[in-house]
C-alpha cells in the first residue's frame, strides 16, 4: 500500500515536471533576470577593476586614500573604449558630466610622460570632490542598491545617509502614485457600474440571466486591442460621442475625451468590468433573499436592512472583485499607451521605455521589481481574505 502510494506520488511529480521545467525556462528564469538586473551593477568593476576594489574598502567619507587615486590612474590608462563607454553611461545616470571627466582624464594620463603618475586633482579638480568619488563608490558593484533606490527617487550618501536623489525629486514616486490612482479609480467605477447590474442579474431566472451574461462574456472574450481601438473611434474629436452630444445641442465644441485621463479611465473600466461582475454576481447569488425579507418583516427600514443584512453578505464579493480589478489594472500597458496622454502613462510604460528605449536596464528592472512585489503581495492578501471569508473564486 505504502509502495503504491509512493509510486502514485512519483507519477504525480512526473506529470507536473514538464510544465514546471517549461516555466522554469520561459518564466522563472526571465523574472529572476529582472531581480538580478535590479541589483547588479557590473560596469565599473569591468572597466576599472583595481579602482572598484579600492572603492569597496573606502568608507565614502572625505576623500579616498592615495592608493585609490593610483588605482584609478592605472585603470584609466588600461581601459578599452567599449568598457569606458558603458561605464560612462552608468555614471551619467548620476551626473552627465562623468563622460567628459573620464574621457579627458584618460587622455591627459596617456599624454603624461612614461613612468610618471600625474596628480589627478591637478588634471581635473572634480577628482578632489567627495561627491565624485561617492558616485564611483555607489557604482563599485558587483551588486548594489543604486537602481532600486533610484526607482524610489532615493540615493545613498555615505556621509549623510539615504536621502532624495535630487532636491525635491519625486519622478518615479509620482509615476507609482499615478498608477495607483488610475487603478483605484478604475476599481471604484467598475464597482459602481457592476453593482446594479449584478443586483439585477441575480434576481432573474437562470435563462434570462445566462442570456444577458452573453453581453458580458462577449466583450470579455474580445481582444483588448479591439476594445481599445473601438474606444479610440468612439472618443475622437469627430467621433460618435462628441458628434452625438453636439447634435443634441449639449455642447458646442468637441470635448477632449482622448489622450487624457478620461479616455484612459473609460477604456480601462470597460476592459476590467467583467472581472468585477463575475465575483460580485457569484456573491449576490449565494445570498439567501429570505434574510432580507425577514429583516423587513421584523421592522427594519429597507435602507437599514440593506446596510446591515444585504451588504455584509455581498462584501466578500465586492472586496474580491475590487481588489482583482485594482491589481490587474496596476500592470496595464497597451490601453493607456493608446488612449492616454504623456501624463497618463502607468509604471509598465516606463519599464518598457527603459528596457528597449533608453536601455537603462537597472532602472527598468527596479521598477519592474516594485510592480511585481506590489502585485504579488496584493494577490496574497486577496487569497487570504477569500480563504477567511470562505467565498472562493475557484
Amino acid at each position, binding site marked *: 500500500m505504502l509502495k503504491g502510494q509512493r509510486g502514485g506520488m512519483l507519477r504525480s511529480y512526473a*506529470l507536473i515536471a514538464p*510544465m514546471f521545467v*517549461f516555466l522554469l525556462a520561459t518564466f522563472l*528564469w526571465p523574472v529572476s533576470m529582472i531581480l538580478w538586473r535590479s541589483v547588479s551593477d557590473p560596469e565599473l568593476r569591468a572597466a576599472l577593476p583595481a579602482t572598484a576594489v579600492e572603492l569597496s574598502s573606502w568608507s565614502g567619507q572625505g576623500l579616498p586614500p592615495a592608493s585609490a587615486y593610483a588605482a584609478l590612474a592605472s585603470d584609466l590608462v588600461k581601459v578599452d573604449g567599449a568598457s569606458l563607454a558603458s561605464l560612462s553611461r552608468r555614471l551619467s545616470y548620476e551626473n552627465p558630466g562623468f563622460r567628459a571627466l573620464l574621457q579627458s582624464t584618460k587622455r591627459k594620463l596617456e599624454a603624461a610622460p612614461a613612468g610618471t603618475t600625474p596628480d589627478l586633482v591637478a588634471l581635473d579638480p572634480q577628482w578632489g570632490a567627495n561627491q565624485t568619488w561617492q558616485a564611483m563608490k555607489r557604482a563599485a558593484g558587483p551588486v548594489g542598491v543604486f537602481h532600486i533606490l533610484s526607482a524610489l527617487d532615493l540615493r545613498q550618501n555615505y556621509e549623510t545617509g539615504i536621502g532624495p536623489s535630487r532636491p525635491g525629486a519625486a519622478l518615479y514616486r509620482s509615476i507609482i502614485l499615478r498608477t495607483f490612482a488610475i487603478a483605484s479609480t478604475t476599481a471604484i467605477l467598475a464597482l459602481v457600474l457592476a453593482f446594479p447590474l449584478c443586483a439585477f442579474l441575480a434576481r432573474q431566472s437562470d435563462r434570462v440571466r445566462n442570456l444577458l451574461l452573453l453581453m458580458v462574456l462577449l466583450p470579455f472574450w474580445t481582444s483588448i486591442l479591439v476594445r*481599445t481601438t473601438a474606444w479610440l473611434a468612439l472618443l475622437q474629436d469627430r467621433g460618435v460621442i462628441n458628434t452625438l452630444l453636439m447634435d443634441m445641442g449639449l455642447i458646442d465644441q468637441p470635448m477632449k475625451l482622448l489622450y487624457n485621463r478620461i479616455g484612459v479611465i473609460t477604456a480601462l473600466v*470597460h476592459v476590467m468590468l467583467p472581472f468585477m461582475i463575475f465575483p460580485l454576481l457569484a456573491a449576490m447569488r449565494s445570498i439567501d433573499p429570505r434574510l432580507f425579507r425577514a429583516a423587513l418583516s421584523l421592522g427594519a427600514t429597507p435602507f437599514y436592512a440593506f446596510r446591515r443584512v444585504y451588504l455584509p453578505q455581498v462584501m466578500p464579493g465586492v472586496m474580491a472583485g475590487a481588489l482583482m480589478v485594482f491589481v490587474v489594472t496596476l500592470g496595464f500597458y497597451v490601453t493607456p499607451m493608446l488612449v492616454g496622454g504623456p501624463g497618463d502613462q502607468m509604471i509598465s510604460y516606463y519599464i*518598457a521605455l527603459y528596457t528597449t528605449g533608453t536601455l537603462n536596464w537597472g532602472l527598468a528592472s527596479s521598477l*519592474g521589481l516594485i510592480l511585481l512585489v506590489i502585485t504579488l503581495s496584493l494577490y496574497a492578501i486577496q487569497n487570504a481574505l477569500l480563504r477567511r471569508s470562505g467565498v472562493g473564486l475557484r
Partner: protein
Amino acid sequence: MSGPRQSLPNRFGRFGLGLAAVTVLAFLMAPLIIIVLFSFKSSGDFTFPITGWSLKWYREFFTTPTWMDALRNSLVLAVSTTLLATPLGTMAALGLAAPQLPGRRLISALLLIPMIAPVVIVGVGMYFVFSMTGLTATYPGLILGHTSLAVPFVVVTVSAVLTGLDRRLLWAAASMGASPFLTFRKVTLPVILPGIASGALFAFATSLDEVVVTMFLAGPGQRTLPREMFTIARDTLTPTIAAAATVLIAASIVLLTASMVLSRPGANATR
C-alpha cells in the same frame, strides 16, 4: 420572489435597477457593435449617420499583404501555442489532482504565477533571457513566450473538471484490475475532455490576444494581428482596422460559443 402587492417605491426601485442594468450592458456592448457597423461603412470615417454600406474595407483587409501576413502569423502562433500548452497543462493538472501530494500548494502557486504577473514584467524578462539565447525575432521564441502565458489557463480549466471527477470511479476501475493507463483512457479522459478542450480554447484566445510579449520579442517583420492593430492605432485609425477588429470579434464569438457548448451541463459526464 415578487409578491402580489408591491409598494410604489419598490416598483420604482426595480425599474431604476433595470434601467441601470441595461445602461451598463449597453456600455459593455456599444463599442463592439459600433466598430462592427463602421467596418461596413462605405465612406470610411468613424461618425454617424451611416449613409452607405460597403464591403470594401474587408476587400482591403484580405488583399493587403501586411494584414494577411499578420493574420497568418497570428493563426500559426495561436495553433502552435495551443498544441504546446494543452498537453503541458493537462499533465500538470492531472499531477496536481493528487490531494495529499507534498508541496502541492506551493507548486500550483508557482505554476499559476504567469497568469497574475504583470505582462510587461514577463515581456521584459523574456527580452533579457531570449536575447541571450538568440530566441528574439524567431517564431520558436514567440511560441514559447505565448505558451508560458497560456499554459496556466489550461491547468485551471482541467483542474476544475478534475475536482468534479468522482474518485470512486477510479477506485472501482482499479479494483477490477484495470491498469492506471487503462483507467485513465477509459474513465478519466472521457470525463475531463471538455475541460481540456476549454483549456485549449483559452490557450488559443490568449495567444490570439497577446501583444505585449510579442512587442518585446518579435522582429520587425513578424507582424501579428494585435501588433499590426497597435501600430496603426498609435498613428491614425483607418477603416481597415475596423474590418480587422470585426474579424477578431467574429473569432471571439466562435471561441465563446465553443466554450459555452463545452461547459453546458451534460458536456461533463459526471454531472
